């Protein structure tokens, strides 16, 4: 295996980790308006991800940085090509992060309500936009001879991309509901399970057609396997959720997220950004990669650090393993 193939794999892994982790963060954000009935319940939900959301978001930064280091051309075309959607995501991530930290810092109702709006909308929008961006990425976008994006915003707003956005939004919300059921206690936990059941079905309704469409559009045998795993995992997650096996349900919804992301990357490989204008202008793992020397160094750093990072992040989840209920929420400051 070439090093650039390994790095394609690693970047796919980073994105998968990002969507697995921040997927339920986004879902929780969206659920603060759907599932929570009052402020205390909203705080229960927010606090399930309180200690971990920041660490989860670093997966995105690392995916970005790794792409920059390992595939500069991919990074350049991707980030300049999806300019406006990425701008919107950035604005959302900025506001959302600040909202988590600042919401509880003043007692005024208006202050807290405004930040709660921010948490909802700035979770919903990126959850949608990431799906739209990845759908476009896999389908192919107009990339010119010079490797630059040659289209406009309208080229990104295809029905296929919009469906992709809806899929990630609903899938992440489902993933978030399953996570809420696993991490909360009391009345909200029961309701989270009920929401998960509904959202799981909704996910199936939008995700199955999308995955079939994506498979037909740019799939191959490997990606077909991922599609099958994603669909099966979703189905079993729903069954487990129904039976009240929350740990299993969460694990499986995570598998569904991971398999869906894996499907997109498997469909992509060996290209990293197919051109819809001329296949010869597509960016591939080989032609967008850094020099073998850079890849070698980064491989050492990645291979040593990733297991360590995953170990201490897992430990964080262990430290904060206790379920949270409304009775655990201290009075507002």
């Amino acid at each position, binding site marked *: 295996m070439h090093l650039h193939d390994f790095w394609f794999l690693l970047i796919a892994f980073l994105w998968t980790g990002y969507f697995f982790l921040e997927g339920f963060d986004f879902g929780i954000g969206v659920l603060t308006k759907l599932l929570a009935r009052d402020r205390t319940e909203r*705080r229960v939900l927010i*606090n399930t991800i*309180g200690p*971990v959301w*920041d*660490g989860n*978001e*670093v997966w*995105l*930064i*690392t995916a*970005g*940085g*790794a792409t*920059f*280091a390992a*595939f*500069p*051309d991919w*990074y*350049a*075309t991707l*980030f300049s*090509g999806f*300019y*406006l959607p*990425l*701008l919107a995501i*950035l*604005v959302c*991530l*900025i506001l959302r*992060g*600040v909202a*988590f*930290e*600042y*919401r*509880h810092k003043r007692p005024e109702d208006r202050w807290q309500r405004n930040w709660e709006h921010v948490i909802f909308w700035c979770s919903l929008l990126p959850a949608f936009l990431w799906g739209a961006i990845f759908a476009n990425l896999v389908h192919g976008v107009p990339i010119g001879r010079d*490797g*630059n994006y*040659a289209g406009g915003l309208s080229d990104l707003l295809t029905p296929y991309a919009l469906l992709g956005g809806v899929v990630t939004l609903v899938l992440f919300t489902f993933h978030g509901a399953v996570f809420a059921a696993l991490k909360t206690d009391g009345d909200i936990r029961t309701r989270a399970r009920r929401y998960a059941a509904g959202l799981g079905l909704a996910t199936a309704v939008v995700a199955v057609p999308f995955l079939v469409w994506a498979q037909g559009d740019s799939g191959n045998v490997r990606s077909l396997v991922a599609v099958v795993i994603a669909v099966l995992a979703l189905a079993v997650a729903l069954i487990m959720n129904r039976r009240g096996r929350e740990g299993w349900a969460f694990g499986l919804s995570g598998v569904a997220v991971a398999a869906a992301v894996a499907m997109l990357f498997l469909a992509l490989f060996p290209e990293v950004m197919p051109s819809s204008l001329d296949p010869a202008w597509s960016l591939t793992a080989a032609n967008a990669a*850094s*020099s073998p020397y*850079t890849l070698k*160094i*980064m491989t050492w750093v*990645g291979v040593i*650090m*990733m297991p360590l*990072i995953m170990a*201490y*992040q897992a430990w*964080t989840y*262990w*430290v904060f393993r206790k379920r949270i209920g409304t*009775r*655990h*929420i*201290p009075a507002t400051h």
Partner: protein
Amino acid sequence: MNLALAPETLARWQFGITTVYHFFFVPLTISLAAITAGLETAWVRTGKEKYFHATKFWGKLFLINIAMGVVTGIVQEFQFGMNWSDYSRFVGDVFGAPLAMEALLAFFFESTFIGLWIFGWDKLPKKIHCACIWIVSLGTILSSYFILAANSWMQHPTGYTIDKATGKAQLTDIWAVLTQNTTLVVVFHTLTAAFLTGAAFIIGISSFHLLRAKRRRERGEELGEKRKKQVGAMRASLRVGLVVAVIAGIGTALSGDQLGKVMFEQQPMKMAAAEALWDTQAPAPFSVFAVGDVSKGHNSVELEVPAALSFLAHSNFTDSVPGINDIAQREADAYGGQPDDYIPSIFMTFWGFRLMIGFGMTSFVAGLIGLWTTRRKRWLAPAFRTGEDEVPRLMLTKKREMSPLLSTWSWRIGILTMGFPLIANSFGWIFTEMGRQPWAVYGLMKTADAVSPGVSQTEVLISLGVFTLLYGVLAVIEVRLLTKYAKAGPDTDEKPPAKDPKLRLPSGGPGGPGGRGGPGSPDGGASAEDEDADKPLTFAY
């Protein structure tokens, strides 16, 4: 196209605004993380409540800051690709590596352990909890190291070759990038400046509280136990701030001098511009004040210290220092075009350099004076003592023990100094980045060739507008929140965690695999957990 609205100009404005803004939070985060860690260590080791309260107080302000630092940092990583895609293509092989290392070796630590620290007060043993903030601190420092290594490569490219087939820079020696003198000196300079910034922040806020206490005292108000404790925590903090300010101030000056020497060698144009030194001179004077006229190629007004610049550049009073006109001619000969193309904004570099040094050194001097006026012999008036542990050191009354410098005005200066290093930092960056122009990567790639060719003027205009507006609004919110919490002072009613929680591992651990069993498990942990089952969280969003 209107040049003022050319994508390059807009992209540069955006980079300037977002970076200077981001760098308000960075130095505060770096220094407050370490200082909070130091205070928590003091608490863990001595068990004194004032250190606990100081830790909580500065920790809170630190968190308000780091929230902004983290989120504005994401923009930095994205915008290379968004606005500067040709730059990214050209340098990615070299420049991407330290950025990715930053994420893998620093960001993950920072972001994960900050969560543990914020929420872990009652979940982690004291020592582990304290270790978490040290890891965060280490993460912030490592993070600055890698990003400065990347920036130093733009200032002075090394350890690379230009690939003949693609025309792109290719890394040949990572150690050269990570350990070149530019990197090491810049890291030293930036870190010391960061600590000066945090120290001034602490001095300012402590001064505010101590002045308030002094005034209350002068009005004849009796200070309650709570206020006395606040004074104790603030006095301890003030001393920490002053000591750090002096050490960091000396470090900033020394490293700044070193960095100047490195830059005289590596980017003579930047240093000539910093001095508005138009013509090569031996010995070269240090300019105190000048009004340059680029079109004429000389200064219209000038006030100089003879031979001082030669000393700064070469450590002697005789050697010649090359002037702007000569260097510009040399660069035009080497890279083509007109000499004028290679002259950065003299106004910005000259004044940026002076404001950086001026504001930075003022806060250092303020720290030095403060340290002297609050030295050991000055005692804390009895009215402020909490009885717990106050060694009389700092006095706050107007009576006989008062040093003349410790008047209301000296406290006010302490408060005022707070913002000085922030101004110095900003101008330092503006100076060093604008002084490198027209280059994005010195000698290799011009800024004009670095922008994204596929991104339209409208798109950059939108993002520039959005970021300016968003950052402006957030600045107002942040400063107000910071002021509110800074003014409130330490919450001295808060009690340190009563018991030290045991650390339990997922399986195994001291109790073996059965450790998680029922109430009868050997370590009794499970029953302790049941007891706490309904206890509210000590910290919640």
